[in-house]
Every structure is written in C-alpha cells, then in structure tokens.
C-alpha cells in the first residue's frame, strides 16, 4: 500500500532563518506531488506541484521554493523565512491521470517567530 511521510511534525524557526521540509512517498511510482499550505482561518492553498523529477510548477508567488530530486521525494525550502510563512504545510500525492484524489501527509506546523 502507498504511504506518505512528511517531517518534521512541528517546527519553530526565527525570522530570516532557512527552511527545509521533506516529503517522501512509498508504494507508488511516478506520482504527482504537491505542497499545500493552510494559513490560520483559511482553506488549503496549493503552493507547488510536480509531475516528475526536476519539474516544478508554482501556483503563487512567494518566499518559498520546491524541488524534486528523486521520483518520490519532494522538498519545500526557503532561504529566509518571513513571519507570514507561518502555517500548516501539507505534502500530497496523486496518481497520474485525470480525476484522481490526492492523499495527504500528516502535515508540518511551522511557526516563524
């Protein structure tokens, strides 16, 4: 069966520090991968998605970047965190093809102080 791992679960970082969140998927090949963010009182916002190694699309301009160095590994990064980067970050995967559901990791609660 497929599983998705995301870490760390919680993170407190000072403003201006770098960020690296990692996500890996097991039990499937060539998945679509996604990073979402849920800010306080808001829905889930798609930040990045990837259809293959090295292929990253950004949905919104922001202080973050994403990379996919391996087929089932997706990394969310920032060189210098802002207070507004605080939120609940979720990695997700889906199979290729139309009309398929996304499966989410447990999420990372990031607090920038």
């Amino acid at each position, binding site marked *: 069966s497929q599983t998705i791992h995301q870490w760390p679960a919680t993170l407190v970082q000072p403003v201006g520090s770098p960020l690296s969140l990692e996500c890996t998927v097991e039990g499937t090949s060539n998945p679509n991968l996604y990073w979402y963010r849920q800010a306080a009182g808001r829905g889930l916002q798609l930040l990045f998605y990837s259809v293959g190694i090295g292929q990253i699309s950004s949905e919104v301009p922001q202080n973050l970047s994403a990379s996919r160095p391996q087929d089932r590994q997706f990394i969310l990064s920032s060189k210098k965190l802002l207070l507004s980067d605080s939120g609940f970050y*979720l990695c997700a995967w889906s199979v290729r093809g*139309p009309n398929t*559901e996304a499966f*989410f*990791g447990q999420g990372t609660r990031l607090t920038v102080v």
Partner: protein
Amino acid sequence: DQQVKQNSPSLSVQEGRISILNCDYTNSMFDYFLWYKKYPAEGPTFLISISSIKDKNEDGRFTVFLNKSAKHLSLHIVPSQPGDSAVYFCAATPYGNNRLAFGKGNQVVVIP
C-alpha cells in the same frame, strides 16, 4: 479569488441525525469534486468524490450531490456519529488537472 466557497463555517448536529454541508464554486471548468475530512494537526483524509457526469455518488453514510447548473454541491452524512466531528473541506479541479482548489472548510460537531 476564492473559486470554491463554503459558507456556514460551523455546524452542530445531534448524533443519529443528518449533517448537510454545502459548497459553491465559480469556475465552470471544474470537472471533478471531492470532499475531505480533517482532524486537528492531521492531514486531510479523502472521503468521497463525484465527476461532473454524475449528479449523485454514495458511499456508505456519505452521499455527495452535484448541481452543475447551480455550481453547487453538498455532502450528506447520515446518520451522523461522534467520530464525524471534524473539519470538512470541499475541493474541485478541472479535468486532467489534479490541482485541487479547496474551500475554507466547515467545522462539524456531532453531539452525543
């Protein structure tokens, strides 16, 4: 611009009764619709979906209805159980896209 809207952010319902959650969307290109359930500090869990070629999909206690002309869908949970207490997100995507647009969520509290 919120393309998927969930009003009435919270709902309280007695155990055994029906919970009805509503969702409206503005993008006429949306072709596939999903509902997710989320507990605090966890990732959302997929519940049920519906394609635009259907107007109803049922899975156990969960039924999703789609009204394309009104750009409206709803989730019915019957009977409601205490374990259903969670935040429910409506999501939608255009055909072949798989990039989900989410609503803000509805908090459901089932009272034993």
